[in-house]
């Protein structure tokens, strides 16, 4: 396992560097000038020169990239052109916010989706299964911004039961201190995610229930509750774990639509605004964070497989 982990970490580093190189090249290939995007329409040639010199944009691309990598290794992602603050500070401010919102909604989605998927599998073809399937498809096909606006219109604008905005505090503690503000964004993201997770879980559980070892367990007189928990749930989780691993980068990349609708600026809006204003340091810093999250999520999924399914071993993998 240790050798496997070392090998995977080595691969992860290669992947992250590859992503960075590609991102760096692509953002510089897009037409347009970062100086003009930042300084505005009245930027004079002199000011553009000053700007490019200040941010090292007048140096060869290879030199700029090496500088970025060297600084990034020291935890310094540079200074945002448009926000005039260190990128690491901006990420440190926004990442926990997204981690809380998206982590919480993902957790809640799993808590709802896993039993729901098994329930549907057990009741396969019955009214309850069909009803949950319809609900899942409706939620899955509904754009999250529309769902969010719908919830706001009903619960904030019409009924005045909940605030339309997410908490505006800077810290995670401050955000948690305003649970009412979290309800609508968390519910929006949870319900949209539930649909996907439950469909995976249902399909997987249907397959598991058809396995011989389930029949053996039942024939041995094991209570149905234990059959479902010990055998069906555990063996059906593998596809969900894969999806969950892929969800990790989404958690750190943010949810730009939800952030915008609920006035909760996080990583998603940070990256979007950087992309539209050619703010290279933020784009590269965010890409690095998302890249790391992607490989970590994948690694988590692989390790989780071995715990869930003893047949899986990575010694010779």
């Amino acid at each position, binding site marked *: 396992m240790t050798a496997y982990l070392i090998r995977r970490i080595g691969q992860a580093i290669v992947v992250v560097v590859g992503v960075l190189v590609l991102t760096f090249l692509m953002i510089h290939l897009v*037409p*347009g*000038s*970062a100086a*003009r*995007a*930042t*300084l*505005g*329409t*009245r*930027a*004079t*040639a*002199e*000011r553009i020169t*000053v*700007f490019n010199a*200040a*941010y090292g944009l007048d140096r060869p691309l290879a030199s700029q990239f090496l500088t970025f990598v060297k600084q990034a290794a020291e935890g310094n992602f540079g200074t945002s*052109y*448009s*926000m*005039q*603050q260190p990128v690491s*500070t901006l990420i440190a*401010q926004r990442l926990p916010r997204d981690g809380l919102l998206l982590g919480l909604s993902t957790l809640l989605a799993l808590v709802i989706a896993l039993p729901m998927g098994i329930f549907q599998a057990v009741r396969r073809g019955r009214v309850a299964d069909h009803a949950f399937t319809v609900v899942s498809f409706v939620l899955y096909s509904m754009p999250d911004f529309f769902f969010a*606006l719908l919830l*706001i219109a009903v619960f*904030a*604008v019409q009924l*005045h039961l909940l*605030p*339309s*905005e997410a908490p*505006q505090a*800077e810290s995670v503690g401050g955000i948690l201190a305003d649970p009412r503000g979290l309800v609508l964004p968390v519910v929006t993201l949870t319900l949209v995610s539930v649909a996907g997770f439950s469909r995976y879980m249902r399909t997987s559980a249907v397959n598991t229930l058809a396995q011989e070892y389930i029949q053996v367990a039942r024939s041995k007189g094991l209570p149905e509750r234990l059959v479902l928990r010990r055998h069906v749930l555990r063996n059906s989780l593998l596809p969900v774990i894969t999806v969950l691993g892929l969800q990790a980068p989404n958690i750190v990349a943010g949810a730009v639509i939800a*952030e*915008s*609708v*609920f*006035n*909760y*600026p996080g990583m998603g*809006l940070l990256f979007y605004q950087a992309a*539209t*204003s*050619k703010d290279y340091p933020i784009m590269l810093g965010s890409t690095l964070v998302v890249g790391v999250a992607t490989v970590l999520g994948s690694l988590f999924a692989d390790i989780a497989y071995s715990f869930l399914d003893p047949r899986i071993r990575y010694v010779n993998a």
Partner: protein
Amino acid sequence: MRVGQRLRAAAAATALAVLAVGCTAGGGSGAISNGESAGAKKGPVKQGGTVTIAELATQPDFIFPLAPATNQNGWNVNLTQPLWPFLVYAGDGADSVVNKDKSLFSSLVYSNGDKRITITLKSWNWSDGQPVTSRDFMFVYNLLKANASNWNAHLVGLFPEDVSKASTPDAHTVVLDLTQAYNPDFYTDDVLSTIPLLPQHAWDKTSATGAVGDNDTTTAGAKAVYTYLQKEGAQTTGFATNPLWQVVDGPWKLSEFRSNGYYSYVPNAHYSATKATVDKVVFSPFTSDTPEINALRSGSSLDVASLPLNDIKQAQALESSGYSIASVPIPGVAEIQPNLYNSEVGAVLRQLYVRQAMEYLIDRKQIVDKVYNGYADPGNGPVPVKATGAWASPLEKAGGPYPYDPAKAKALLQAHGWNVVPDGTTTCVSPGTGSAQCGAGINAGQALTFNLAYSSGRATTDVQNAAVKSSEAQAGITINLKSEPFNTLISTIGTCTVASHPASGCGWQLAEFGYQPYPLYPNGTGFFDTGGSNNSGGYSDPKMDQLIKATEYGSSTQAFTDYEDYAAQQLPWLWLPLREGILVYRTKLQGVVPLNPFSDGQNFEDWAYTS
């Protein structure tokens, strides 16, 4: 025109114009008062209370009022103006004039043929009790003199380079001898209105622990002080806590600043004029207008916010929730900038008759009525008739030189050798430079087809440009529309001139940025003069340069009219209507109206809740 003014006005764009206009026809809107003429509701004033203002899609990131050249965030001026007001305060209520009550001077006297300005400062105090003196003005002058190239509002040739000698005969008098005579209107409204007074007795040092002295009096010292203050000014965590920024002469002190852009002011207890009535003003950031409108409708604590005209149908509901709504004209000019040196169509756009034909085809009245529901300046020329009506010429007030007239447009093109194909593609059939030919650089078969790039994100702009495209087609002029986020758009638009028009930055043909803001004196400096900072399309005309200089250097009203009418006729840009701003405010909050087109609603010391 001064860049600082534009930064400030650009911030107003974010706050007032983003709030702005545009509207589909239809009812449902409540009563929207003209924010300029609407009288402030008077009632028994309640001392205290908090005013929460929506801050839309932007936030300040620099507090030292003299920001570096690499920082063009216009919202910074909004943050600092209540702390360190400019020497000259623009706008008095709804009037586009200098506000003498709020300005820091008691008199401004131009003499020696308008080459000398004698500024007498009011008896005024800093928040730490020290008096505001002429030394504070000299502190600013010395800093800028040594660091002008790293000041974001600097324009070569103007302040401080145009000052040949600055002296302080006494503690309240500053005498500036200028290198040449200036039009007092121009210099007061566009130059002195960008200069704050800063506390020399607290800021003239080179480090946090260094002693305050006369460091600014040497070039090296002024550079060191400037570097130190700029470094501190970028530390957002210290905005509300750094002792430097606690010394203010404005009506407010910053009490809190969060990393997400939320910030608040409390009254400056030692303010030298009438102190604020409310106890606190909070700026609450919003990512876009959608959550802002939702917050207003859900009964949040928002007291003042913008209203995009797409959402004008919400007016009635908002009014029933205790809000009032007012409109305010924006001092600026909305335009389509032609790139006269684009390799494909530059030669065509350099022809005045082509630009005239295109302007004749823009139905500005229809756009004002149908797209902006009447809330827009007609855009008859370079000077807004509504926001700065005192400077608008009779020609502009009468509808401008090119009222909507498709027949004239077609006739102009036909008279210059074009085969006009309505709703088709008009092409040049008579190349050459004769009076009845297409013009220099235009080949036979050249089509009147242009790409118009514009800033996305505003529904009314989409509708307006679709209307322009449709009406231009009447003379066979094809406009291909392409919208992009503002920053993406401007990143691809370089300044192109006859001497330099590289393909990398001059591939654009027509561009619409929204609008260009004006200070109090709405002349064309920087817009239409050769090499002007906002003259992206390379327009150059010696007569225009001369007329613009005449508005800067001479004080003749006729000189301004001559410039304005010439610009209106020559069409360095194609004129468009300019939307108004719409502001939503609590009805019980008095003093918000009449709205000042120049203050960006930053005069909250005048606001008070009625009981």
